[in-house]
């Protein structure tokens, strides 16, 4: 009897999602993310298409919007939460690094190769950086990061050891 205020989300779903995201979100945040997911998923297909993501003005003016949106490939709710999970204040530094690595690794083979870096730099620095300069930068970065032809996660992590990732936090708005 009565109506589910969260429109279709059961406790079982919530538990599953919390487990999938390693417990960085509490129930209130999950509910709030679910509302957001439903708002973005027009037509209630169960996943969010890239067009729907890019309809968010603030996202569409982001230089790496295209990569971000294709990185998660039409996420259903669980994958959506897993994507936001590294940005929770309770997420570990490792989680954040893993996410950054996954975005940077365009072809998804577990290594950041020259091609991956080239594609990312095109999105990050645009076309005012010439092809020649881009390759030059990539060579220098690879040299400074240990000299290998491509970066694995350990090398990536070591390269960013001095980076302050404290800014990598997103507040999930929760209405009490």
């Amino acid at each position, binding site marked *: 009897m009565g109506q589910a205020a969260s429109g279709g989300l059961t406790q079982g779903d919530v538990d599953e999602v919390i487990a999938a995201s390693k417990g960085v979100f509490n129930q209130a945040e999950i509910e709030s993310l679910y509302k957001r997911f439903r708002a973005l998923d027009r037509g209630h297909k169960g996943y969010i298409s890239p067009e729907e993501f890019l309809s968010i003005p*603030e996202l569409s003016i982001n230089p790496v919007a295209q990569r971000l949106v294709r990185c998660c490939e039409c996420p259903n709710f669980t994958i959506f939460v897993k994507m936001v999970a590294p940005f929770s204040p309770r997420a570990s530094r490792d989680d954040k690094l893993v996410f950054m690595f996954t975005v940077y690794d365009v072809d998804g083979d577990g290594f950041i190769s020259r091609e991956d870096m080239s594609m990312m*730099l095109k999105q990050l620095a645009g076309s005012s950086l010439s092809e020649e300069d881009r390759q030059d930068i990539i060579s220098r970065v690879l040299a400074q990061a240990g000299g290998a032809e491509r970066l694995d996660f350990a090398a990536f992590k070591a390269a960013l050891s001095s980076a302050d990732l404290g*800014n990598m936090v997103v507040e999930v708005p929760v209405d009490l």
Partner: protein
Amino acid sequence: MGEPVKGRVESSLPGLRGIVADDKDQEHAVVTREGPTKGDAEIDQLYAEAEDKRLSKTSLLLDVLNISNVLTDGVSAMVDDSFNKCFTSTRPEPWNWNIYLFPIWVVGVVIRYLVLFPIRLMLLLIGFNTLIAVFLLVDLALMPSKRKMALQRKLVQWMCSAWVAAWHGVIRYHGPKPTPGKNRIWVSNHTSMIDYVVLCSYSPFAVIMQLHHGWIAFLQKRILSSLGCLWFNRTEVNDRAVVAARMKEHVNKEDAIPLLIFPEGTCVNNEYTVMFKRGAFDIGATVCPIAIKYNKIFVDAFWNSRREAFGKHLFRLMTSWALVCDVYFLEPQSIQQGESPQEFAGRVQAMIAKYANLRIVPWDGYLKYYNLGEKNPGLIEKRRRVLADVLRAYLGKTGAAPSTMELATEGKAALDGLQRNEEGLKGAVDGGVLQGWRKLCTGGTVHPV
């Protein structure tokens, strides 16, 4: 980070976190398709400066590999953004969830759908059709004269009252009733097409509307034309000069019926208000603001055209207990010395927002229909160029960069290339972003300007 300047509202740049812009003016930095609050170049510059602040510029490794800032911007926008908030209707708390209240609720539903709705619908059809018949009769029988016009306006007013009665509208009008005057224009916030009906049942208004098809077109052309409503095609609405000329022409007529404009350009959810377009504020007329606030107690009057057909919206209104609404007619405002039309629009918006208890958001309502990044590739390119310059500095170069236009087209080509590449790699994505937006654009309707 920038230091906040005393005495001004903190204006961070939408979509770019962590930095407060060095913004000398009070206005938000917003990028739009037509008249922006600042010059495009200025906004691009603000974003570029903010990007510059975020880079380390000391370590090549960090500047290349540390993409945490752009990722945070992106994911933050995915989780919550200030634009979509304006178009969500908050679901009311269900109150029927226990054994005592549930039967009462069921009785209520039965009465609303099976008793009230049929009665209202019948009365509406009878009343409305009678009035239309009388209207057409008057139209054909009498010669065009002042008396005929006055009679027709009265009839339209009655028709709107019939509609309001069909929704059992409990509407309170505050402030002096509008009277026609030379060089005056009325503006109001926009929640649904019924705004016009609510206002018209009290005092007749002309409005600028999209010309529809079918029976609505018949209504529009035969009946609403008597009120002097101005018609446009979608393509013409985009032509600001034409609209401005017709507005000027209308307000300069001696006995012109009050012209009503909805400067937001789209329906907003009555909790927020999006950017007021400056068209109505640019013609040198006195602006009379109207604030409309709907009470959500029985029904939410917001018409979300993306989720709901207009018929369904009307049905929802007719099957609720009542439509409660407050309308405030505010003091006429004129443009001040040294004030730009956009600032004038902002000032009037602040007045309306105060009475209707709305929060002001700096986005252009038309963003519902197009992708901001696609329309303003220049902004993204400027941000990218900041990083490119920093990277080139590591190489010891500070060469001149190609022109912005070249950048924009090249940037787009690079994006398309990346898109196609990734489609090959990951598959399953159809059409790309531009097609998706074209679909949306053809599906959406344009609301009164």
